[in-house]
């Protein structure tokens, strides 16, 4: 276990370093990326197989050695029921992205640079979910920024420069404040060890300190998540990012924020979280409603809505559910949040792949160009590209939370937790929040179904502008099928067999919340 986890982290880092060798140029670099991320996925699966399912609340595969004794920083990594699914998801998505890039690397830079950045990004993402030291967590949190910045700025689409800058500056401003919060937490508690902090449950930290820590660290995590009103970097970044960048951004990077709430703030500063939970919940629900309304306005005919931007806004809404689940501070809610994390990673990852495929075929993701600006026109993917259309419809209904698919359980549990929040939290407030979130699910269904209607349905004979320009198009290709199948399968599996995930997270969440 220990060796597996270390190898999981070291492999992509070594791979990234290896891409500095000039001999590894051209397509060889892309194959190299596939090999490394594939091996990493195998390691992650082996890690999951070796994981002791009877003790998911216990850190397993722990390495704990001194790294910088002067700063009390220890190289402390481990995996439990909360981090394991996220590690596997990350390894899976990076592998799929590497596979996808093999065929569909947008122009912008050399293949070698792309592979190096992808592997560096992988290192940072995996490390974030595996480390158990506050400063190491911060370091891992920051590692992802530079590669993602270059992915957007070099390989992105229109308006990529400003979008990339917005992404990195927003996140950095958040993380600078977060660093202060982490330092206050570590210095006041006398340890930077996350397991020790979690075991203490805020013992010895005054209420005031805890509130300051939650505010400071929370801002950094909220920017990343993103929580309304700190979300405004997200739509631009997603719209400009290349497909693989969007997938990883939505599928993994956003989860780092919510993971931080669960891993750091809930166990270490329970009093502070308790005080601020209603506000977190309120912001989360505003995010849900705001995201859905923004999507509804984008999907209107004649609004010139970009599909990628629409899915980005829908992420704001979905992450709102995750944050709401966290804000309830109950085992049910937090479990729901973690489930929704994974569900959103799978489904939105798939959606971005699909929209990327649409954009590649038609050269645009503009809904009006694709579907025509009329009230009853559509791109008619069902008729023209039936498989792609079917998959898009599948991903859309999964995203709106159809029971039986991965999107359902997380949001249900988050709302359930909100119906019966933790002791001491105002129940009327949370019930109100739940009702509003429920309204959000309706709005979500409305815009996603509109997307399906405008993109998938329509008269194949009538030709909207973008469609007219690109007459003969191929349906789902082999490499696309290979990339998307795992996501589709996992979406169904997680929807039909939620106990698989919940069994992992429940004991760990209970331990973090301090119950039983």
């Amino acid at each position, binding site marked *: 276990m220990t060796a597996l986890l270390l190898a999981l982290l070291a492999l992509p880092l070594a791979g990234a370093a290896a891409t500095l060798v000039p001999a590894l140029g051209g397509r060889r670099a892309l194959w190299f990326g596939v090999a490394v991320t594939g091996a990493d996925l195998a390691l992650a699966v082996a890690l999951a197989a070796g994981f002791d399912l009877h003790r998911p609340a216990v850190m397993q595969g722990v390495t704990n050695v001194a790294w910088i004794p002067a700063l009390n920083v220890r190289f402390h990594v481990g995996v439990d029921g909360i981090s394991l699914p996220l590690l596997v998801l990350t390894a899976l998505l990076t592998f799929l992205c590497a596979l996808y890039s093999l065929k569909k690397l947008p122009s912008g830079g050399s293949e070698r640079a792309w592979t190096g950045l992808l592997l560096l990004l992988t290192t940072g993402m995996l490390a974030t979910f595996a480390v158990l030291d506050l400063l190491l967590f911060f370091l891992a949190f920051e590692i992802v920024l530079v590669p993602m910045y270059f992915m957007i700025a070099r390989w992105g689409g229109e308006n990529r420069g400003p979008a990339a800058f917005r992404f990195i500056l927003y996140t950095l*401003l958040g993380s*600078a404040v977060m*660093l202060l919060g982490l330092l206050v937490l570590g*210095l006041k508690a006398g340890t930077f060890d996350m397991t020790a902090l979690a075991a203490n449950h805020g013992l010895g930290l005054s209420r005031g300190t805890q509130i300051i820590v939650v505010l400071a660290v929370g801002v950094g995590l909220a920017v990343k998540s993103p929580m309304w009103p700190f979300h405004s970097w997200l739509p631009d970044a997603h719209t400009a990012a290349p497909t693989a960048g969007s997938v990883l951004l939505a599928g993994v990077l956003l989860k780092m924020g919510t993971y931080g709430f669960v891993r750091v703030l809930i166990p270490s500063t329970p009093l502070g979280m308790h005080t601020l939970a209603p506000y977190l919940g309120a912001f989360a629900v505003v995010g849900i409603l705001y995201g859905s309304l923004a999507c509804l306005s984008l999907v209107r005919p004649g609004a010139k809505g970009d599909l990628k931007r629409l899915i980005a806004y829908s992420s704001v809404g979905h992450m709102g559910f995750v944050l709401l689940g966290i804000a309830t501070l109950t085992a049910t809610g937090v479990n729901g949040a973690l489930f929704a994390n994974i569900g959103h990673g799978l489904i939105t990852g798939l959606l971005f792949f699909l929209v990327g495929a649409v954009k590649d075929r038609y050269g645009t993701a503009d809904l009006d160009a694709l579907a025509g600006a009329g009230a009853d026109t559509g791109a008619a993917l069902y008729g023209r590209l039936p498989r792609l259309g079917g998959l898009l419809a599948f991903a859309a209904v999964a995203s709106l939370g159809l029971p039986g698919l991965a999107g359902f359980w997380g949001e249900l549990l988050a709302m359930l937790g909100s119906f019966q929040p933790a002791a001491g939290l105002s129940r009327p407030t949370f019930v109100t929040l739940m009702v509003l979130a429920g309204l959000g699910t309706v709005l979500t269904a409305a815009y996603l179904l509109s997307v399906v209607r405008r993109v998938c349905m329509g008269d194949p004979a009538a030709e909207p502008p973008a469609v007219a320009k690109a007459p003969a198009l191929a349906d789902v290709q082999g490499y696309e099928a290979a990339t998307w199948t795992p996501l589709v399968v996992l979406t169904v599996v997680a929807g039909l067999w939620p106990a698989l995930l919940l069994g992992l997270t429940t004991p760990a969440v209970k331990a973090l919340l301090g119950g039983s």
Partner: protein
Amino acid sequence: MLTVAAPSLIQSVDWAAIAPPLVPAALALVVLVADLFLPPARKALLGWLTVAGLVASLALLVPLRGGHHRTFCLPSQAAQAHVPVSCSYVADHFALAFQLLVLGGALLVALLSIVSVDEDRLPAGEFWFLLLASTCGAALLPACRDLASLVVALELASLPAFALVALRRDGRGGEAALKFFLSSVTATAVTLLGVSFVYAASGSLYLDRIAAALPNVPDQLQPLTAVGTVLTLVGFAFKTAAVPFHFWVPDTYAGAPVPVAGYLSVVGKAAGLSGLAAIAVLGFHSYGRDWGLALAVLAALTMTVGNVGALRQRADAPYSAVRLLAWSSVAQAGYLLVPIAAAGYGASAHAVGATVAFALVYGVVNLGAFAVVTSAGARLDEYRGLFSRRPAAALAMAFFLLNLAGLPPGVIGLFGKVVVFRAVVDAGMGWLAVIMAVNVVIALYYYLVWTARLFQSAPDAVATRRRVPGALVGALALAAALGVVLSVDPQIVMQLASGSLFG
């Protein structure tokens, strides 16, 4: 050996302790004389001689690593048995760390200069003499423990620096040197006034005796003492280029030969900073609340002004790269002052360790950046597409810039900022921490823009393969290797940030 008899009159000298600053001083004279006898074609030897001397000087730090050497001590007398022995020169860990920074920094600068002296046709003998003399002063300064030697060392570090700035012969150097000189002399005068006030109030020039005397100063002398402490610190603040003593920096850096600008930004700054830290923490600690707050405000202003100045640099202006580094070095001086302010405010002198650690990190990565600027050009526009022309230099530059910004993979730059943050959080100065956090993000912007420019596609990709001189490659490789090693094992430098450095 000469000092056997009459111990009450003659001080014994611990030659090993003073060897590191002494070697550059002796070498400076050797270089000056040798310059007269060397034919012009062989002048390059002087540069390599300097490099060798600095390496030797660095090696002489090794036997001192215990940190127990001290010399030029007042002979203890029976009548004053209760007074601790006061020494003018103490090679404790604080001094050694700064000497390592100064001598190592000078070594890198010397490697860079070997090319510049040749290309800019600077007078070789004079250049190396001035560089070594200034290095000697800067290396002397951190070990000095009385106000008189501190001021002398500060002047020894500064005066040759004016001349170094003026050496460039295209007219820009003269103006820059004059600006530098006039403002520096004013600062020195103010410092001397402050020193005289402190002497009047405390009756001693030794820092430890001043520290002992200041809490017992009679009431009517209190204002005089307070004014004296602040004025004394002004001169040292000038050398660190703290606001409002920063205005000389951009013009001076742009006017000086590029390696000299690097020298000023690291070695000159280290000298001022070490003096400031030693005086403030060792001498004036009882007034810590006063100067702690003053320094904190100064630090906040310095980093803000520096960053705003750096933000305003236009990429197509001449010398914009050097100017940007100059302004950013003003901002970094602000970060460097933060732990000293925290030490005054939070009552723990340990905080100064954060300054030392951050200064070492900054020295390595900033000189690395200057090394690339020396070889790649002084205008920001020239960096567009550097990666496609010279990938190694571009990658090294990206690494240095990300370190300066404090972003992974520049791990050591990140931890350098973390120790500074830790010191200020420890001292409970929340407002300063927040101002610094905002500043760090502002700085990230311009470092990132520069980094991004390296990887842009060049407008007209003319693959001009110019051979880069070996000394330059050596300096670059040295700085990059140090940066990577420190990033893998930050403990090497971060251990300075824990525990007391003063012996």
